[in-house]
């Protein structure tokens, strides 16, 4: 069948700089570069290039540049190059289009249309270098009433809590979708930072049990890798009902990624596809969710908080309210722009709602019903920097999950081809020669640096607002103003427009 596909990129090589060292050739798992010995020239098959920049970064003479392919179809405002190419691909393959990471489409990013307040004159801003500035949060359920013993002393009647030094956690990414070294980097960083990372639905490699106190283990629809020891070693258990990048559908890890180690962690045979069904087949309604929440609590003697993670969909406020009444200690909401290791393109780009709107409406609904204090809210779905964290908390979140940002810290260049399994940066791959490119010793330090840097910035922003504890920011929407938002958007976000 004829192939009409155009390349995405062009490889520009400055011949006056190229020393024919062939690093690019060795580094490219996509086999873009090759060497023509006869003519002593480096060649490039541009159709294979995913734009991961591995060759650019490692070229010792900076001879390489990857640029956007300049060829184009006849210009058409309605039919973009992308639309045309996708049709060619589907006409060739007859298959569902697959994509990785969050949607690249220009969907509205409400965080960018929200501005943060600062103190002037009537109350003092606080300098975090001179005064204490607190970013510690506890996640979990709060009881309705206090209890005292016979002497009047307060009893600690708090259910189990997660203590975070800073309201940021690494979101669920399974061993299998990402590499051993990526997982080790996340686990070690979470431990050093006093936060948590999340196993995703991939089970837990035995080497990582030692990071249990900083591990959230996931129970998803495929129940891969779930056993008593897995639940017992964790700090918290997350039931994954949905994911922002692919609400309403399950997961599929192809057999070639199910290596010996991955198979053991997932408790499935080597080389078989790991298919997570779209729903949990024991949860067809809210009362079933309640049963799973309490089954997991029973299994772990009520010592661990249970998180229920859902994708941000249209009716999210009512869904969250149902979850809050179903025994969950923490609700995690993953927004429309959230990342993924692989998702059908149409689902990723068209299903779900942005996290900012979902968060604002959930927080409001839980308050209207008087149950916001019963449950903690964690949000995800493209938290890109510390300002996004601050805005999310002021809208009402207790903490944020970061996935893509953490991977970028590890070296991910967002080429969005995780589903191909040939990650040149050693992150989204199981090929040993590629995995070893990610050094966990360096990887974990980069993650620690990232979160530490964000913590500094959060403190600066808090101090500017005259707030010295992140607790006083939570739901503090008066600290936010919208710019360029319409009345309805402002109403849903529960914020005023700048100037008001």
């Amino acid at each position: 069948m004829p192939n009409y596909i155009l390349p995405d990129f062009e490889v520009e090589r400055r011949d006056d700089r190229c020393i024919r060292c062939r690093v690019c050739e060795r580094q490219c798992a996509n086999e873009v570069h090759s060497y023509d010995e006869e003519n002593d020239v480096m060649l490039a098959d541009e159709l294979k290039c995913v734009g991961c920049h591995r060759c650019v970064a490692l070229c010792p003479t900076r001879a390489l540049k990857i640029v956007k392919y300049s060829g184009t179809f006849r210009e058409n405002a309605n039919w973009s190059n992308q639309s045309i190419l996708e049709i060619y691909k589907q006409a060739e393959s007859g298959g569902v289009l697959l994509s990785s990471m969050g949607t690249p489409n220009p969907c509205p990013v409400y965080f960018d249309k929200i501005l943060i307040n600062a103190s002037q004159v009537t109350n003092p801003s606080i300098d975090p270098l001179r005064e204490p500035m607190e970013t510690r949060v506890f996640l979990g359920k709060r009881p309705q009433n206090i209890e005292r013993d016979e002497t009047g002393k307060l009893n600690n009647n708090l259910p189990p809590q997660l203590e975070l030094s800073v309201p940021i956690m690494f979101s669920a990414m399974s061993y299998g979708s990402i590499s051993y070294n990526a997982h080790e980097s996340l686990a070690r960083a979470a431990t050093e930072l006093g936060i948590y990372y999340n196993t995703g639905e991939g089970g837990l490699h035995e080497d990582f049990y030692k990071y249990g106190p900083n591990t959230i283990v996931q129970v998803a629809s495929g129940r891969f890798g779930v056993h008593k020891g897995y639940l017992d070693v964790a700090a918290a258990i997350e039931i994954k009902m949905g994911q922002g990048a692919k609400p309403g559908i399950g997961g599929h890890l192809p057999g070639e990624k199910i290596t010996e180690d991955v198979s053991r962690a997932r408790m499935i045979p080597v080389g078989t596809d790991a298919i997570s069904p779209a729903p949990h087949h024991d949860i067809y309604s809210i009362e079933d969710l309640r049963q799973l929440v309490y089954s997991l609590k029973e299994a772990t003697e009520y010592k661990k908080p249970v998180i229920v993670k859902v994708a941000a969909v249209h009716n999210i406020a009512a869904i969250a309210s149902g979850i809050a009444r179903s025994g969950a200690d923490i609700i995690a909401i993953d927004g429309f722009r959230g990342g993924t290791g692989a998702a059908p393109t149409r689902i990723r780009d068209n299903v779900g709602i942005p996290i900012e709107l979902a968060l604002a409406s959930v927080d409001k609904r839980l308050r209207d019903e008087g149950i916001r204090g019963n449950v903690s809210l964690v949000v995800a779905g493209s938290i890109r920097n510390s300002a996004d964290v601050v805005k999310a908390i002021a809208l009402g979140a207790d903490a944020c999950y970061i996935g893509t940002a953490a991977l970028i810290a590890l070296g991910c260049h967002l080429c969005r081809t995780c589903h191909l399994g040939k990650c040149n940066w050693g992150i989204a791959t199981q090929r040993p020669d590629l995995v070893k490119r990610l050094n966990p010793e360096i990887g974990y330090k980069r993650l620690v640096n990232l979160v530490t840097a964000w913590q500094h910035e959060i403190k600066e922003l808090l101090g500017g607002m005259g707030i010295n504890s992140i607790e006083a920011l939570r739901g503090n929407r008066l600290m936010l103003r919208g710019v360029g938002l319409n009345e309805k958007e402002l109403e849903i976000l529960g914020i005023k427009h700048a100037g008001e």
Partner: protein
Amino acid sequence: MKLVEGRVRIPSGCAISGIISRDRRKFTGERIVESMKVMRERSNGLGGGFAAYGIYPKYKDSYALHIFYNDSNAKRECEAFLNEHFEIDEASELPTRKIPEITDEPLIWRYFALPRPSRLAASQLDEREYTARCVFAINARIDGAYVFSSGKNMGVFKAVGYPEDVGRFYMLDEYEGYMFIGHGRYPTNTPGWWGGAHPFSLLDFAVVHNGEISSYDANRRFIEMFGYRCALMTDTEVITYILDYLIRHVGLTLEESASVIAAPFWSSIAKKPPEERERLTYLRTMFPSLLVTGPFSIIFCFEGGMMALNDRLKLRSMVTAEKGDMVYVASEECAIRAVEPDAENLRYPSGGEPVIVTLNGGKDNA
């Protein structure tokens, strides 16, 4: 549109003062007025007020409702509501003295009332909660009526003006009580409404406050889950509701409540002995949304005494002193010296350190 409380948020600087006789000896309101007078610099004439305790011995078992009315329609509507929900012992205009400094006063009425027993029983609430909900209902639903005082044997007196003029206007020199607090306001805006002056009061709780809290909306949105409605958008209002919630509904002591709203830093908690550490960690974890940040100094009064408290960084001045059974709290030392030149044990309480004064022979708590 007039910029009044409830429509806009108006930050204010302020002066506060409080005087209490622990032996419940009565003195006139003249002293608190004198004390406030020397802090005139800290107000700008746009709000002043007082709360006085022990002033209505004749009606000490009735709720004394002080109400502002914009017009006689509001009064008619409100009185219909009151008659439906309360048995009213006495209704009269609150006595005032015409002075040139205070103008544009609304109708100011006082009612001594008790909940109608049949209504109270039907509501399945205790007497205080019933009364509090009636106050909320009037303030939220009856346009032009505003209950600004609703305690027993106590009363709030407030207006737009300098505190000393407000004191003269309400003839505070003719009231005798065992505890008084005063407030002078320096709003950064032009409020035209008497209800926006302080103290803010609910039942026998009254609060005067100096500061601008940065946690306002976090606190407001949390406390509104429990039936409170922050209609005025002022710090004082939300702080009063937080204390009412923690003390009356949750059942915390004053000291525990102080550890919630002006919680010690985690680094300080870590240095405490184990039992204290556990208690403070519990309170912070249990009520994180009621932590109040930003500058404040408050005096919180209840029937049995008062608590003075600063924000945990002490970003507002506050001084305490004693003389015999008298205890004084004020924004500035001069406000104490003005009424008690020989005051002793002058102290500047640390940030977050509550100073709790209770009546001798009374209960220790609100």
